[in-house]
């Protein structure tokens, strides 16, 4: 509206052209602002994303014992035990990152294709690894490989072949693998004053657990081996092999070697043959207690047990042998290894 006495450029009124132009500008600006969140999806560069996933996977692998922490003892042929494995970490203990447990490594890399894998004691590749290690909604492909740098050969891999023309996320970690050694050798020699027809080997779990996890003989999570070596001229007939609780409160609870048919169990062999009592021994008796056996029977880290091997003849004059860090030789050692995680 024209005001008398004023000229046009002093009126403070906007022209129609400017209003239309400004409106279009504002609409465009609002449009871009709304679209910007969708456009930012492209900023999820593949390299960044996959590297982050690879790093996260490596952290779970080498800095975490997994959930449950002794998941390697689970029998994966049983659906409930497979389902109870929530996270696949490889360390010996949560306080010792980068120190891996060999039993967990062996179980972790033991995998099979999805077809029929649920009936085997192995992980399904790739489903179990995606849901228990890599996580995330996107079905990542992966390759995890391990190579020992020490004396023990340790080359393992799981996952798809590495793509030749696709970029992938990559992380390399340096670790040490605990090589469990838990063999106690007892020499028995023919002497004139043999007065015991039963060898008793006492294993006090709390003594074994006194050492830190990387250097520990773990009776609950590893095989224990006891070898009775018969010297030249000494023979005897073995009649019974059993494990008894200690201390003996009231009637001792004993479990015979044939209490369980399937693993984990107590395995006895005589001169390299299977044990069928009564049996003549000329060279050695070997007792291997499977990892997880003591948990199956109901023992924990504060218990103590006696392994009793009964013979017809006298075989020793020592009433009790102790299974501990002095008598077991060699002891667990750590060996370096490199582990690589690739995700794409």
């Amino acid at each position, binding site marked *: 509206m024209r005001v008398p006495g004023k000229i046009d450029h002093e009126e403070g009124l906007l*022209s129609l*052209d*400017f209003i*239309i*132009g*400004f*409106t*279009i*500008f504002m*609409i*465009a*600006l609002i*449009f*871009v602002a709304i*679209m*910007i969140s969708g*456009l*930012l999806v*492209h*900023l999820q*560069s593949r*390299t*960044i994303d996959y*590297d*982050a996933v690879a*790093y996260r996977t490596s952290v779970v692998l080498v800095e975490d014992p997994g959930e449950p922490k002794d998941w390697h003892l689970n029998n994966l042929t049983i659906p409930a035990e497979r389902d109870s494995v929530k996270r696949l970490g490889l360390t010996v203990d949560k306080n010792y*990152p*980068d*120190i891996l447990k060999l039993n967990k490594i062996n179980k972790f890399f033991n995998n099979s294709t999805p077809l029929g894998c649920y009936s085997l004691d192995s992980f399904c590749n790739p489903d179990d690894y995606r849901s228990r290690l890599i996580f995330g909604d996107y079905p990542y492909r992966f*390759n995890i*490989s*391990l*190579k020992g*740098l020490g004396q023990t050969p340790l*080359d393992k*891999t799981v996952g798809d072949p*590495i793509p*030749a023309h696709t970029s992938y996320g*990559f*992380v*390399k*970690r*340096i*670790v*040490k693998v605990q090589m469990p050694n838990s063999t106690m050798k007892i020499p028995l020699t023919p002497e004139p004053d043999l007065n015991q027809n039963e060898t008793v080997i006492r294993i006090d779990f709390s003594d074994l657990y006194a*050492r*830190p996890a*990387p*250097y520990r003989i773990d009776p609950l999570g590893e095989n224990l081996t006891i070898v009775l070596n018969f010297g030249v001229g000494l023979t005897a007939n073995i009649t019974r092999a059993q494990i008894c609780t200690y201390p003996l409160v009231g009637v001792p609870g004993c479990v015979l070697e044939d209490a369980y048919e399937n693993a984990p169990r107590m395995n006895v062999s005589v001169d390299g043959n299977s044990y069928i009592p009564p049996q003549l021994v000329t060279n050695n008796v070997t007792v291997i207690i499977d990892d997880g056996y003591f948990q199956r029977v109901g023992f924990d880290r504060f218990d103590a047990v006696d392994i009793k091997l009964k013979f017809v003849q006298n075989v020793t004059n020592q009433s009790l042998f102790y299974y501990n*860090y002095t008598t077991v030789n060699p*002891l*667990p*050692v*750590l*060996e*370096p290894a*490199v*582990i*690589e995680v*690739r995700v794409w």
Partner: protein
Amino acid sequence: MYTIEGVAAGILMIVTAYLVVSTTTVLTPQDVHIIDMQLQQLGNDALAMMDTPDNYGPYSPLTYMIMTNNSSSFRQEFLSFVNNATNIDTSGNDRDRLNYTASFTYWNVTNQPNTISFGGSTYYRENAVKVTRWVYLPPFNPTGYPADMNSNTNQTVLLEVLLWRE
């Protein structure tokens, strides 16, 4: 006339914003950080594992290396750790090409911090990361100590390793 310019400007802004935002080849600072992070993680892992004894009881290999001033053993083991690969990637190199230069800082007899080189290669301003580790030394008096180190008491020295990819 102004209307046409307004429309053109709006379209121009949308197209420009789309092109900028949707470009995937932008080298963002995060890319560099991830490469640095990988190197740093590798170096920290290597030092941590060298500082872990293989058997129960004795001091770690890293402790012994510093106590005896054995930089050649350190070089051999450190490069073995960081450069080894699992060889699963048959298309690429079977070994990495990382190099380093190291030093450690200790208290001397006059209770002053002193830094001494601990071997390694010459650094020519490559893109490098620094990893550090506090290494425990018992009161021990081997010949390899730096002459002015206060070795009558236990102490912790700061080991610094500059790590880069060649």
